[in-house]
């Protein structure tokens, strides 16, 4: 088994910052990342060999990313790209699936920096071709230089909509409208005092706003997409006003022609590994749903297991960078490589960024629920094609809990392992029980955390198994 001082899961902003700090402080580091190339979502860039024509708008981000990637060549850093952490049999052990490089890594401390995933919000037509999540569109634009449409509507909630809208405009797409569920214009004056805490980020947001204004893109605040219509692919987005409690006013609905409907209802921390290890979680609707409880050092309730960045609670790239540095410093202190009080220049920055975050999340506070969008015929589980009506029929037959509904409908059992439907199931169950999604018991996560090729389990050297002499007798507990 490979050993190191610190194992980092994820080579996005938080993971790279943690690796940089840890390598400088003299720790032996292993960085495991799912992607073929470092940078995560934010610093995503085209594969080697792509020759972009002219300067692309995120060239500056890419250059900033490149300087972060340098750490991966550091002599104390082992970088495993294209590598999935599929199990953590103990809090100090990562089981890595990476083709011929598969095997376990034992670390004295672990920093999880897995980032976030799109928060699924189903509505009629959301599975039509041409309806793409904001994260997916960003990947296509940044990672592949693919423009997935000609006339777009960008709908959902959160600051990412401005960014995606501006990127689409700069890529030559006609953006018909930005549809923002939160009444941001009404809330903006009250939040300005906190938003000025991070002037560079605010300036960037204003730049995106200016690009959209220059292209004549209207921003409708307090509206939501309620349906994607079209037979083979989306040809219209249907939108309607939504209030802060989630009530939709369908009488005022409008249709907008488009061949691309970008949906971005916020992002959620990828909490699978902390959940698997039994780390304490906390439901926080403003930070993406289930978030990881952490100490001031970003340590979870499981000793020597840290989480940095959006993988713990949504905060964005700058906060993720700060948390990566701070978590690595905490690990170095724990391992005796750094004295208390040293190396804390990131703390003041984190505090300022956190103040900005509080302003931003208050500005963009989403409606209490999107359940009004989930009509009976809406597909909730897109791997197994399970509609809300089917879930309700099974519920009528007695399947009451998430686990029973899962068994009865096969929802959550597809390739996405429930990532696209479990949050919705929690919403529905909470609704029926007259409680909050935070109170709903979810099925226990189990390895593999991501689907992995079975062949990857044949790589590691293992001692031969202890086989039963009589296969029929009780095997006994381990």
């Amino acid at each position, binding site marked *: 088994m490979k050993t190191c001082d610190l194992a980092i899961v994820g080579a996005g902003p938080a993971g790279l910052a943690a690796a940089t700090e840890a390598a400088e402080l003299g720790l032996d580091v292993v960085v495991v990342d799912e992607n073929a190339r470092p940078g995560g979502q934010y610093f995503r860039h085209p594969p080697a060999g792509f020759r972009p024509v002219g300067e692309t708008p995120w060239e500056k981000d890419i250059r900033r990313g490149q300087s972060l990637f340098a750490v991966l060549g550091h002599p104390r850093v082992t970088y495993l790209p294209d590598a999935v952490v599929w*199990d953590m*049999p103990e809090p100090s052990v990562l*089981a890595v699936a990476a083709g011929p490089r598969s095997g376990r890594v034992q670390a004295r401390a672990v920093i999880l920096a897995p980032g976030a995933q799109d928060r699924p919000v189903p509505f009629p037509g959301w599975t039509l071709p041409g309806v793409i999540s904001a994260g997916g569109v960003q990947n296509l634009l940044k990672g592949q230089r693919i423009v997935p449409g000609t006339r777009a509507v960008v709908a959902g909630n959160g600051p990412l909509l401005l960014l995606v809208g501006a990127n689409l405009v700069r890529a030559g797409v006609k953006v018909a409208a930005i549809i923002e569920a939160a009444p941001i214009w009404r809330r903006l004056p009250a939040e300005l005092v906190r938003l000025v805490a991070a002037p560079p980020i605010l300036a960037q947001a204003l730049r995106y706003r200016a690009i959209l204004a220059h292209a004549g893109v209207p921003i409708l605040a307090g509206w939501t997409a309620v349906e994607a219509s079209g037979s083979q692919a989306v040809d219209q987005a249907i939108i309607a006003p939504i209030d802060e409690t989630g009530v939709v006013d369908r009488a005022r609905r409008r249709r907008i022609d488009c061949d691309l409907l970008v949906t971005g209802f916020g992002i959620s921390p990828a909490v699978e590994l902390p959940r698997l290890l039994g780390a304490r979680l906390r439901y926080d609707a403003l930070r993406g749903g289930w978030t990881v409880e952490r100490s001031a050092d970003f340590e979870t309730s499981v000793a020597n297991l840290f989480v940095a960045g959006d993988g713990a609670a949504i905060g964005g790239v700058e906060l993720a960078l700060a948390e990566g540095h701070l978590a690595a410093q905490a690990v170095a202190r724990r391992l005796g490589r750094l004295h208390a009080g040293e190396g804390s220049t990131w703390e003041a920055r984190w505090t300022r960024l956190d103040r900005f975050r509080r302003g931003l999340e208050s500005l963009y506070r989403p409606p209490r629920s999107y359940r009004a969008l989930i009509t009976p015929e809406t597909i909730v589980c897109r791997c197994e094609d399970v509609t809300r009506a089917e879930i309700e029929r099974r519920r009528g*037959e*007695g*399947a*009451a*809990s998430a*686990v*029973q509904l899962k*068994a*009865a409908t*096969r929802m959550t*059992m*597809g*390739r996405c*392992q429930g990532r696209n439907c479990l949050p919705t199931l929690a919403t529905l169950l909470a609704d029926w029980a007259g409680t909050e999604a935070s109170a709903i018991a979810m099925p226990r996560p*189990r*390895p*593999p955390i991501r*689907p*992995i*090729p*079975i*062949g990857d*389990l*044949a790589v*590691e050297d*293992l001692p031969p*198994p202890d*086989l*039963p002499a009589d*296969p*029929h*007798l*009780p*095997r*006994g*507990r*381990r």
Partner: protein
Amino acid sequence: MPRRVEIAVIGAGVAGLCTALFLARAGREVLVIERGAAWGESSGANAGTLSLQIKRNEVLQVSRRAIELWRDFQEIDGIEVGFEQIGGLRVATSEREVAMLRRSQGEQAALGVETEWLDGNRLRDMAPWLGPDVRAATFCGWDSMSVPLTGGPGLARAVERAGAVLLADSNVVSIRQDGGRFRIGAGGNSIEAERLVIAAGAWTGQVCAMLGVDLPVAADVNMLTITEPAPHLIDRVITHIGGILSLKQYPNGTCLIGGGWQGRGELAAGTRETEHVSLMHNLRVAMQVVPDLAKLRMVRSWAGYEGVAADALPLFGALPGVAGAYVNACARGGYHQGPALGEEMARLMLEGRTGLDMRAFDPRRFA
């Protein structure tokens, strides 16, 4: 006021539901008491393997009858149990295992279960997808598979249609025998029954202890893994002479891999987790037998309890020393045998004797 019934069945897994089904069909008044949800534990979490040739000699007759009943559930009663009689291959991968397989084949033939010996080209012709390490196999035309996930709700509805009543979320906390009747405290309910069947799977030891009977029951924690849907690859139920592999591909393309590899867990604590290294060994055996599995992606693994008596034979019959109480639980491979064990239990309670020879399963062997 306690609820009065003729027969109370404790446990709504396969053993309890099938017992209730045959009793209710005979016109008896039956209440099934379940601590959680019907089919919520081992019956819903097992591999659905209905392989006759992997069974111990003592349970061959029961297991053969059970396959007929599973087929009837699907084809006559219209219960969606996913039954498919595709035949099975029991493989051997070493000289020692080949000898074990030969011996087992002979013993089974003597008991009236014929299998076909396959090796060399004949084996590759039938199953070209087997790996080079597989030296021989026996083919059993009885071997079948089912889908545990969908079978439960269908069977529960059939039990209710037959007239029995299901009481879920009612954990039995006390049983007293009083004036020839059983008084059962379960999840806030008070129930009075003339007769009682304990079909509580891994929890059977705990329930019998409430009546002062000590039965040696252990809880194994069996692991299973399922793959993503894949193109058609495996068209037989695969088992292993060493008892370390079960493998099948369902019509939706997913492959289910098991073999009794042990996870971690404690019945008392309600924990049942996968065990990393054993899971790797389980999947390595699967890849040794069917190498093409290496290319498929695994999507989920899980672990479920299996209640097993010390000698791994069913606990079936009258509970020693407690008139009117019966036990029907803890058969190794009990999911497979459940329908026949239910049928025989109903027969024993209604007619005082069984159709098949069930003497080896009498719980008095532990008294």
